[in-house]
Structures are given as C-alpha cells and as structure tokens.
C-alpha cells in the first residue's frame, strides 16, 4: 500500500508573466504543510488560496479533467514536461514524488508556436490548426454500413487505437530539443492512415498537416526520442516513421 502521509516544506520557483508581452520572471514561494497524498495541482491550488488571501494574483495554469485525459495541465516541473514520472500528466503527479525541503522549478512550455498567455498558461491552438488542416475523413451519410464491409486488421486497429490515445497535451513539443510537433502530428496522421476510410484524403492530409505544422513555427525532428520519453500516453516514434512514409507517398503522387 501507499507510504504513510508526510508533510513537506517546499521552495517553489514559479514563472510569472502578466501577458504575452510581459518579459516574465521567476518568483519564489515557500510552501509548508504540503501532504504527500496531495496531487501536484492541489499543491498549486493551496498556494493560490494563500495568494488570494493575501490579495495577490494567483498563479494561472490550465487544468480540467485532473485525471490524465484532457491534456490541459501543461507545465515543466524541474525541467521535465509534466514532471519526473514516465507516462503521467502533471495532474497525475503526486507530491509523494518529492522530498521535504525540495526546490521545485515550474515553467510554462517553451515553444515559439505556443506563446505564453499568462504565467504557466500557453496558447496551444496551434495543435487545433494542425488538426483542422487534415485530421478528418469524408464519409457518406445515411445508414451505417455493415461493419464487415470494410475489414480492418487487428494490427491496424491496435496501431490506430494507440495513436488515437494522444491527448494533444504538447509535452512532446515541450520536451523536444527542437520544439518539434512531429510526434503529435504523426499520431494524428497515422491514426487515420490505418483505416480504409482514411485513405481517400491520405495524401492531401499528410501534405497539408505537415505544411501547417511547418508554418506554425514548430521545429524539425532530429530523432532524439525525447518526445516519446515525455509523452504521457506512450505515443511511439513509429508514428513519425509512418508520417514520413505517408508524406513521401503524397509527394510521389504530386499532392
């Protein structure tokens, strides 16, 4: 069972920035009585309660589901996207991963394509734009056709399911030394390319989504694999290889 609850005293170093144009700076906060049973976001909630009581501006950060499915809780914790643990989002990180007296540095994602809006909040609409550029399929309306009309192999179904588990959190971009969005983009391209239904637009999709990704100012993958290591959903680098093949096919077809 879980270890006994302890109370931690922590030194937080948090990035504060008024708005897009503000230069921004780190501010130090001392926190006492943080339970090892609380989550990382609850710890920031505690800090914000204190700040509000003191009449100060609370730390802005994105969060929604708090169970690892929405992809909102973007932040660098001690230089790692979503903190030190593998396959977890920040909301799934618990204070038992830290020890008494620790200094914790909290920073927003840093990418030219994800501008900081305030404190830890970034504008990640760039991801939506990449999806809008090609992350769809054309289907006939009317009655659903018989499922056996379009057989999908178990292998393709599994690969599509794995790719579809991407929650669009942006940890891949944050962790990549080149701020590349290729793991995210490849998950979206690969997911649809696994199915017969995804073939109609396959070439345009690969070409247009890669073009959009480039134009938004993301970097270029140099195959470090930091994205894969940081991804809370374990999205595999094989997706990037698949995207590279899809892109090549599109160019050969002149799309």
């Amino acid at each position, binding site marked *: 069972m879980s270890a006994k609850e302890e109370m931690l005293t922590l030194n937080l170093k948090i990035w504060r920035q008024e708005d897009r144009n503000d230069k921004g700076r780190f501010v130090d906060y001392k926190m006492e009585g943080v339970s090892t049973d609380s989550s990382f976001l609850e710890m920031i909630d505690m800090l914000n309660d204190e700040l509000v009581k003191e009449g100060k501006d609370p730390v802005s950060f994105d969060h929604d589901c708090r169970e690892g499915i929405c992809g909102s809780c973007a932040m660098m914790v001690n230089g790692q996207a979503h903190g030190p643990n593998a396959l977890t989002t920040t909301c799934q990180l618990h204070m038992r991963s830290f020890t008494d007296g620790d200094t914790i540095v909290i920073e927003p994602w840093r990418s030219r394509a994800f501008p900081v809006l305030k404190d830890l909040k970034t504008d990640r609409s760039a991801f939506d734009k990449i999806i809008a550029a090609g992350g769809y399929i054309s289907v006939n309306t009317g009655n659903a056709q018989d499922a056996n009309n379009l057989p999908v192999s178990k292998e393709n179904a599994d690969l599509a399911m794995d790719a579809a588990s991407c929650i669009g959190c942006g940890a891949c971009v944050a962790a990549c030394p080149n701020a590349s969005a290729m793991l995210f983009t490849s998950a979206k391209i690969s997911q649809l390319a696994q199915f017969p239904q995804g073939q109609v637009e396959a070439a345009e999709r690969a070409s247009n989504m890669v073009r959009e990704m480039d134009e938004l100012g993301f970097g270029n993958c140099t195959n470090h*694999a930091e994205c894969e290591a940081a991804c809370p959903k374990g999205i595999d680098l094989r997706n990037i290889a698949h995207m590279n093949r899809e892109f090549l096919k599109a160019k050969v077809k002149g799309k």
Partner: protein
Amino acid sequence: MPSHNYFTYSIGKKQITAVTGLGLVGFTATHLAGNLLILVGADAFNAYGHALVSNPLIYLAEAILLGMFVLHIAMAATLTAQNIAARGRRYYIKNRSGRGETIASMTMPYTGTILLVFIILHLINFKYGAHYETTVDGVVMRDLFRLVVEYFANPLYVAWYVFSMIALGLHTGHGLQSSLQTWGLNHPKYTPKVKMVSVAYGVLVALGYSGLAIYCYFLN
C-alpha cells in the same frame, strides 16, 4: 495554395539530409577500406590512389560527392536554424529523460561543423598537398603514401585527426539509424538491431581512421 515543392517541407529537407547523409556514410566506409591498404604497403596504397584518379569516372564520382555534401550541409543548416528559432525563449532548466537524447544526437550540428572544417583541411593537406612522385611497376604516379606518413609525423596533426574522427564516429553513429527513421523505416523487431549496427559503424569508423593515423605516426 500550398507549394508542392518537396524541399520546402520540413520532412522533405529531413529526407534530403538523410539520403545524402547515407551516401556520405557509404563514402566514409569505402574511403576507409581504401586507406586500409596503407597496412599492406606503400606500393599497394599508391597504386590504388592512382587507379582512382586515372579512371575518367572519378570526375562524375567527385561531382556526386560534392553535390551530396552541399545538399547535406545546406539542408542540415536550415533545419538547425529553424530548430533554434522554434524554441524561442530557452528553459531555465531542462532535464533530459535519459531515454531519449544521447551525446551523439545532441551534438549533431557541432560534430557536423567539425567535419566541415576537417574536410576542407583534409583536401588542402592531401588532395592539394605536396606532389611527390614514385614508380610502381614501371608506372610513374603520385606518392601519397609518403605525403600521408610525413603529415602524421606531427603529433598535433594526429591529435586533430583523432578528434575529428571521434566527431565522425558520433555523427554517423546517430546519423545512420536516424536516416532510416527519417525515410520511414521503423520496425519493432529490427529497429533496435539497426541502432546497434549504427553505433557499431560509428565506433569502427572512428577506430579505423584514427588507428591508421597513429600507425602512420609510428612509421616515422
């Protein structure tokens, strides 16, 4: 309307970098195989060099090689500049996961730049270096063996050469497997083996070239 020019896409540039890189990896291996004739002796090495330069196809081969270098450097430099710009503001602290970046992958732009300087000096020192003559089996030809052995009499030159070959080993050790991924080849069973082969290639190339330089030093 989006342009359909392959070179204007990130992945297009990456694939050009990768295919030219692979070509250079092949060149590196054949060049090393040729150099190993130094171990056989002066005549064997000189005769090989002579055979190469007397073949009219050498001009075509050199043009292709130069083209690969120029494309590789132009694409890699563009990609690297974009990558630096893409981060924007740097992190205050950034920790590696330990499961991604390696020394070789992190240093690709640096090892590449070292290689560029190395190649320029290498051409100046050898290809366009002193022109000694020797006769092998009655044929007058360039005595490259003497030039090489004299060059490596200077331990500083040996040190610079070994340093550059470590850079080459690192660059190709990451580059070989990376270029296959860039061309879409990734397989759960074979990719781990490809990575091992890639590192082994880097180590062998670094050891092979450095070993020959040290051997030449001791011939003096």
